[in-house]
């Protein structure tokens, strides 16, 4: 890599080479049986160059012909993407605890047995379809640039997702575990899940109207994607955000504190530098309801004349080949400050309302404006402080800049999530429009 970079440097003003490799194994159980094992061994290179204040980009998977990669980057200078950005000088990245060597050489058989154990426990108490997805492995990234940055990090991860499906549907109750090493699902958590499932079996009807809505941690992405859009440096630059000029204003309920904490290495994939080599830091987005910060990568920080926040990640809504993605402003380590009540206390405090166990169509609608209008599946009904069943054909709708002013209470515990951030609590909102046929 080093040689190639110094070779590239002769042709341009600044250069940055990004390399990643990953080795993963995926295990899928469907309806209680192990169905599929799928491995991936992937790697790739991205090259960014800056010449005459113009940014160029190219990538490749196999670096069989380095000249072709360089030519690709030089050709892309045609875009005349003007920038004054400087690739960072990041020589000593902060060390985080992100790699557990036990993940390498992990016995596949043992993991399959863990899946079987969980299924057995659930099946002994429920006549339900149980699906499980387990993924584990390692990922390595390395970034070098012409300003002296030469950093790399190796990550290990283990992710276990279990879904107990309701009859006549394809959706159910999820359990998510994320770790840096193999980790067994605690029986207590399974028991809670089973209890909720049992209460939710009866099909019930719902009275449409404004009501209390309890979002589970892994469904909050439906709202947080809108906030991520509103606070993204690129959307601020293009004036596509309703939050422009609102830093310091109270926009949400004072119960809400939402922040990025990339250094929290209790969960996998903590980061001391982003995909551009910029050192990361804790970044408050919303503190007690007050809008504190937007987040930036190098390019948009330069456009707006502000400091980058270390949020430049090779990220895209539907994923993609890492090498092919350009860094964009992205939230990757979102947390929400927990509140005071337990999950079951939150339910007890609801006279009439619903619990959002899954959302449909969170990516659709007018996201920049903060509007949401989403199907709820599964949707559990709460009456008199107890789950009394589940409701079909239900939607909720609103705008996050109204809805998130109406937070009643936040759960006192964080749970790992998949789609938006690292770990979040459940949140109880009031006055959300719910419609059901």
């Amino acid at each position, binding site marked *: 890599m080093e040689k190639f970079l110094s070779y590239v440097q002769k042709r341009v003003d600044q250069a940055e080479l990004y390399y990643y490799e990953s080795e993963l194994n995926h295990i899928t159980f469907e309806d209680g049986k*192990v169905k599929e094992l799928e491995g991936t061994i992937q790697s790739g290179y991205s090259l960014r160059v800056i010449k005459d204040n113009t940014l160029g980009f190219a990538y490749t998977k196999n670096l069989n012909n380095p000249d072709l990669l360089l030519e690709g980057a030089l050709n892309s200078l045609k875009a005349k993407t003007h920038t004054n950005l400087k690739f960072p000088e990041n020589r000593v990245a902060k060390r985080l605890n992100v790699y557990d060597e036990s993940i390498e050489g992990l016995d596949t058989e043992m993991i399959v047995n863990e899946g079987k154990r969980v299924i057995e426990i659930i099946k002994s108490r429920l006549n339900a379809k149980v699906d499980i997805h387990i993924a584990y492995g390692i990922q390595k990234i390395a970034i070098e640039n012409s300003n002296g940055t030469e950093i790399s990090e190796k990550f290990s991860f283990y992710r276990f997702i279990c879904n107990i*499906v309701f009859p006549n*549907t394809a959706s159910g109750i999820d359990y998510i575990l994320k770790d840096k090493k193999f980790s067994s699902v605690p029986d207590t958590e399974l028991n809670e899940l089973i209890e909720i499932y049992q209460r939710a079996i009866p099909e019930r009807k719902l009275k449409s109207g404004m009501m209390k809505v309890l979002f589970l941690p892994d469904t909050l992405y439906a709202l947080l994607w809108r906030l991520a859009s509103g606070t993204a440096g690129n959307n601020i630059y293009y004036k596509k955000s*309703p939050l422009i000029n609102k830093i310091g204003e109270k926009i949400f309920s004072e119960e809400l504190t939402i922040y990025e904490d990339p250094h929290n290495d209790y969960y996998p994939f903590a980061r001391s530098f982003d995909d551009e080599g910029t050192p990361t830091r804790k970044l408050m987005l919303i503190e007690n309801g007050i809008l504190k910060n937007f987040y930036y990568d190098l390019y948009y920080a330069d456009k707006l004349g502000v400091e980058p926040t270390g949020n430049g990640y090779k990220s895209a809504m539907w994923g993609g080949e890492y090498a092919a993605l350009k860094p964009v402003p992205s939230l990757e380590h979102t947390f929400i400050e927990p509140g005071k009540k337990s999950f079951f206390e939150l339910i007890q405090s609801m006279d009439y309302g619903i619990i959002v166990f899954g959302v449909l169509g969170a990516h*659709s609608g*007018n996201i920049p404006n903060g509007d949401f209008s989403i199907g709820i599946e599964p949707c559990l009904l709460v009456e008199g402080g107890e789950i009394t069943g589940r409701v079909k*054909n239900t*939607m909720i709708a609103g705008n996050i800049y109204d809805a998130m002013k109406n937070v009643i209470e936040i759960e006192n515990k964080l749970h790992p999530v998949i789609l938006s951030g690292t770990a979040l609590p459940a949140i109880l909102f009031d006055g959300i429009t719910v419609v059901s*046929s």
Partner: protein
Amino acid sequence: MIQILKSMLEKINAQYADLRYELKTETKIIFSGKDITEISSCPADGFVLRIIKDRSFASITFTKEKDFEKALKIALINAKVLSDNQGIPVEFAPAPVVKSNFTPLLDENPEDVSIDEKIQLTRYYNDLPYKIPNIIHTDIGYNEVIREKFFVNTEGTEISEKLITTRISGSIISGDGNIIQTVRVGIGGSNGLGILRNRDEHFIKKAEIANQLLKAEPVKAGTYNVILNQNLAGVFTHEAFGHFSEADLIENNPTMREKMKIGAKLGVDHLNIIDDPTIPGQLGFYKYDDEGVQAMPVQLLKNGVLVGRLHSRRTARVFNEPPNGHCVAEDYRFPPIIRMGTIFIQPGDKTFEELLMILGDGLYLCDAMGGQTSGENFTFAAQYGYIVKNGKITNMIRNINISGNLYETLNNIQAIGNDLKLGEVGGCGKGQLNIRSCYGAPHIIIRNAVIGGI
């Protein structure tokens, strides 16, 4: 390349194995506002290996040719773990051995057009919306994906297929004070660059809608009778029904499988739905899928009765139905999964005006803005719509999301228009993205649709 793959295959000791090598060259010209933020045209490649050993099925993807032995070792271990754990036994339905090198004929091959000309064309369309008032931003890009696929299996099939997908797509954003409205634009297909020429009207019309949406009223949540336009009815067909024709989504869901039995009456008598990837010139066109099976048209619903479903070789065996070439991968990073090709509601006999009269009072909803399915429940958004009173289109509405239950909705399709239109831009996410996912329909009336509103 076929020879390299064949020599790799010879080293595999298994009942069945296939190998796919793919070189994907993606060209992107991305505008954010009036600036270009990216031009790239880069090759990316990799291998996908699948094996069946002791009736267990394992797959692995790898980037570097030198990693073949390592990948094979992992796949063999995975297959062994599967067979030791009473994994679901796997066999493939028989499929003809194919030897073919296929490249579709194109209307203007984008490989023959310079990047400068593509930039000029994209810039031209990107500039058009700004002629309309209140347009504050555009995110419009040119995207060209060339997949050169080389496939071999131990049965003797050897296929090279080159698929080129082009599009100019993105969004137009209008703003007025605190209100921001977004509409999507998209033109393109599998048939070359020709379809991207002379399409000014599409961008102008969408920009006008973005502007009008600023003054439109949010729809009031409730239950309505609605007319869906072709694009939206196409998304409904894809999301609500189509995914259930994918055998892998129901095979291990006993209750859904029971409901989706061949011969089940699922919809109204006048409802016919087909998936046909063989229609030339359409976005969803391909000749061979990514397990080497020739694509075939599949009648899914005939007079409201389920008569077919989409299969891979594995699920065809599970259901004891014929394979039909619907097992497609996004690219070199993925083993193939079951996908729709070109799915659509076959046209009925009503004109749009007749549909409006039948509807009387209700909503006319247009153009999709994303959708999702979970089990028999679906949600999808419309970009804009109108209130219909007494058969007449009146005020514009926005913030429209429709939610429903598949079986109820299939029985609530009151009337079907005669004006079938197929989509030009795909993008179905099912773990992998399918940019060639093509859907369409004529205008249709659905009774009692749940609208989320705001």
